[in-house]
């Protein structure tokens, strides 16, 4: 067995040393966000500020990164979340992760603080800390142009330098946007990481692995989601679907439907602005949008950015979205948190509670606003602290659309209550992916599991959260898991009576899902249809990964991040949503258009094997072989 080797870099002392991962940790946590959370618990004391020099930021990979398996350029950045005080784990599809592995390391653990701006370079197993004073101040595009073309890069922009709470990292044009990881880089004076090397990435059984990849790629290219819908429309294709289900946040989540949403839809984008589709390195799905901006081809917006710089701020100008998406990227801002914070500020303005010169529907000053946020200029420094902080200063907690402090993604959970539960319980805060992405099964997919019904939602949320966590930890893109929805349903279509019947009947499947969750260890089969990742992971690592143990890995990932949150002072009380979503029905005539967290949470905790206060029980940790480990 080839165990991963990380490097530990202390920027205060300038010391670097190898940090081999033990067999026990490798078998249990594999890598990625799971291992990173475990290491954060081990290596950092409780209660540190995210900006304390002693705080660690971990940039690491999973065993599938760079192996050539589909959609495996995705690497992870974990630290303490600037917005929530809990776990930060941010995922990125840039080439830095696979380059890091080729350069000889599976991960970097960075602590301390450099006196002046630095670039950390990893080349052929050697680490150098280089002066980066001349790079400081550059946007994420410029700084990457200045660095050698062939290297894998991970950089911050002006927002990270000024420690904007939702500053992200850029690797190529891909962002590790969420949780403020860019601000943590800024606090340590890290402008850039670079990596290059030619080491072969080892795979336990190369021959079988190659064969399986061929099969898997063929499967992805045949499936409607990964072979047709995502390549044609990208995630942007969800705008019209969410809008039709009244799950498209509109005017800061006051409503879930905008009659003009088609102006910023994936279809409009594809028909009028798209030059071509592209993708992260290694990905056959290719959901990335390419668009022209000022005569240059740049990355187009994702669904969340279209929704949030569109209907959620009362705007309907697709060209503005393209521009603001690009501006956020080069400044190094997370588009979700930035746009959601702006929507909140607009509502504060509308209600006369604060005045940032922002009004629903007015996009004329937004580029300037983003630049001022990134520069922390004047009162815009308040916006740079995110919605939660703003609501504590100016009021409006009931409509500050975050959970735990992290702004929610562009799914209106009152018409997708499982998604609401996901937002509330997600470890990094209001995140649809960490939250289990139930919206896919309730409101934006081919299947619609009664969006207002609370039955079975807790069980499905647990199942989905575990599956998504395992895919992330392995080093894959979550979109590669979209094939989980059977092709036959796409053939029948959403309106076919079978699809509709399944959606209706699924609310009765709670006990079945609970049973599946309980018998995981004996699920010793692998199937391309369910989770191809398990088989790929087995062939790559030589460890016995089957569907059951793969889901276990996901559950362990979810629990270890939960343990980190609990250690940092978050509690079950923080598994919450703003009152707008739990108290005010989206449709005043339909009382059930709220998220009944009071009903959902107890079932969720029970299904997870947690106690009533949301703490994992001893026996749960024992089952997951995580006992005697809580930090």
């Amino acid at each position: 067995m080839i165990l991963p080797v990380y490097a530990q870099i202390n920027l205060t002392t300038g010391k670097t040393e190898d940090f081999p991962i033990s067999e026990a940790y490798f078998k249990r946590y594999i890598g990625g966000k799971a291992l990173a959370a475990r290491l954060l618990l081990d290596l950092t004391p409780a209660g540190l500020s995210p900006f304390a020099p002693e705080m660690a930021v971990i940039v690491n990979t999973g065993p599938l990164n760079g192996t050539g398996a589909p959609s495996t350029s995705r690497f992870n950045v974990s630290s303490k979340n600037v917005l929530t005080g809990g776990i930060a784990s941010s995922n990125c599809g840039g080439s830095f992760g696979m380059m890091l592995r080729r350069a000889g390391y599976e991960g970097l653990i960075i602590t301390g603080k450099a006196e002046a701006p630095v670039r950390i370079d990893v080349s052929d197993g050697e680490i150098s800390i280089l002066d980066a004073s001349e790079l400081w101040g550059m946007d994420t595009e410029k700084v990457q142009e200045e660095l050698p073309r062939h290297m894998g890069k991970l950089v911050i922009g002006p927002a990270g330098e000024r420690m904007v709470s939702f500053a992200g990292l850029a690797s190529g044009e891909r962002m590790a946007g969420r949780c403020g990881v860019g601000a943590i880089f800024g606090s340590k004076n890290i402008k850039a990481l670079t990596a290059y090397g030619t080491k072969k990435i080892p795979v336990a059984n190369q021959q079988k692995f190659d064969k399986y990849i061929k099969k898997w790629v063929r499967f992805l290219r045949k499936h409607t989601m990964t072979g047709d819908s995502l390549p044609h429309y990208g995630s942007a294709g969800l705008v019209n679907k969410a809008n039709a289900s009244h799950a498209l946040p509109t005017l800061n989540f006051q409503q879930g439907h905008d009659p003009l949403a088609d102006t910023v839809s994936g279809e409009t984008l594809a028909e009028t602005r798209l030059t071509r589709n592209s993708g992260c390195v290694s990905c056959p799905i290719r959901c990335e949008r390419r668009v022209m901006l000022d005569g240059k081809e740049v990355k187009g917006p994702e669904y969340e950015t279209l929704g949030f710089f569109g209907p959620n701020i009362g705007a309907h100008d697709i060209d503005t979205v393209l521009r603001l998406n690009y501006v956020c990227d080069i400044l190094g801002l997370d588009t979700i948190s930035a746009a959601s914070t702006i929507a909140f500020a607009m509502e504060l303005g509308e209600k006369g509670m604060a005045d940032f010169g922002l009004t629903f529907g007015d996009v004329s000053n937004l580029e300037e606003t983003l630049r001022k946020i990134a520069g922390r200029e004047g009162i815009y420094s308040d916006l740079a602290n995110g919605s939660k902080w703003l609501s504590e200063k100016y009021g409006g907690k009931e409509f500050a659309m975050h959970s735990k402090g992290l702004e929610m993604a562009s799914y209106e959970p009152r018409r997708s209550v499982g998604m609401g539960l996901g937002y509330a319980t997600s470890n990094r805060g209001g995140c649809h992916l960490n939250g289990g992405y139930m919206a896919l099964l309730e409101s934006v997919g081919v299947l619609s599991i009664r969006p207002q019904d609370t039955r079975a939602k807790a069980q499905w949320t647990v199942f989905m959260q575990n599956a998504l966590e395992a895919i992330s930890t392995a080093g894959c893109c979550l979109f590669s898991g979209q094939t989980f929805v059977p092709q036959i349903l796409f053939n029948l279509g959403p309106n076919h009576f079978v699809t509709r019947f399944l959606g209706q009947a699924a609310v009765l499947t709670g006990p079945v899902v609970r049973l599946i969750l309980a018998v995981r260890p004996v699920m010793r089969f692998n199937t391309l249809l369910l989770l191809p990742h398990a088989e790929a992971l087995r062939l790559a690592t030589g460890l016995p990964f089957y569907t059951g143990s793969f889901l276990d890995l996901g559950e362990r990932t979810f629990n270890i991040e939960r343990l980190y949150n609990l250690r940092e002072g978050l509690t079950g009380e923080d598994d919450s949503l703003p009152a707008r979503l739990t108290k005010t029905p989206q449709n005043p005539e339909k009382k059930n258009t709220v998220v009944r967290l009071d009903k959902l949470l107890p079932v969720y905790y029970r299904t997870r094997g947690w106690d009533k206060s949301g703490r994992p029980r001893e026996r749960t940790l024992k089952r997951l072989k995580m006992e005697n480990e809580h930090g």
Partner: protein
Amino acid sequence: MAHQITEACSGCTACARLCPVFAIAGERGQRHAINPKRCVDCGVCARVCAKDAIQTAGGRIPPRVPRKEWPKPSVARAECSACQMCVEACTPGALSISLPKERGDLRVFAELSAPAKCVGCGLCAEVCPLRIIKMEGGTAA
């Protein structure tokens, strides 16, 4: 294992300029050196060396090969998923993903768009997850 540069080197920099993994360093007019950790034994340096100063890991001194005889990648287009692994690996920038024929055309693939830049290293074929790139038409060193 790695290639090495012998005393016959005149320091003409030709190998350093063509090495696709930037493994060769040295001053003009001085004997160059290959970073053994970086070298992938692609043999490009030997093919371009006019002084027969490149020694393979096995101790052989391969002859110089005229550029037009260097191998070139050939992609099985129909099978290509345009995952860009080869494009990323191609540091000289000879490969790219083809442009769609019309808006919405998804049938794109990796292609040798700048053949003049290709050094015939074969890194593209090596990283291709589907193993559908073959190096053809040349004399491997």
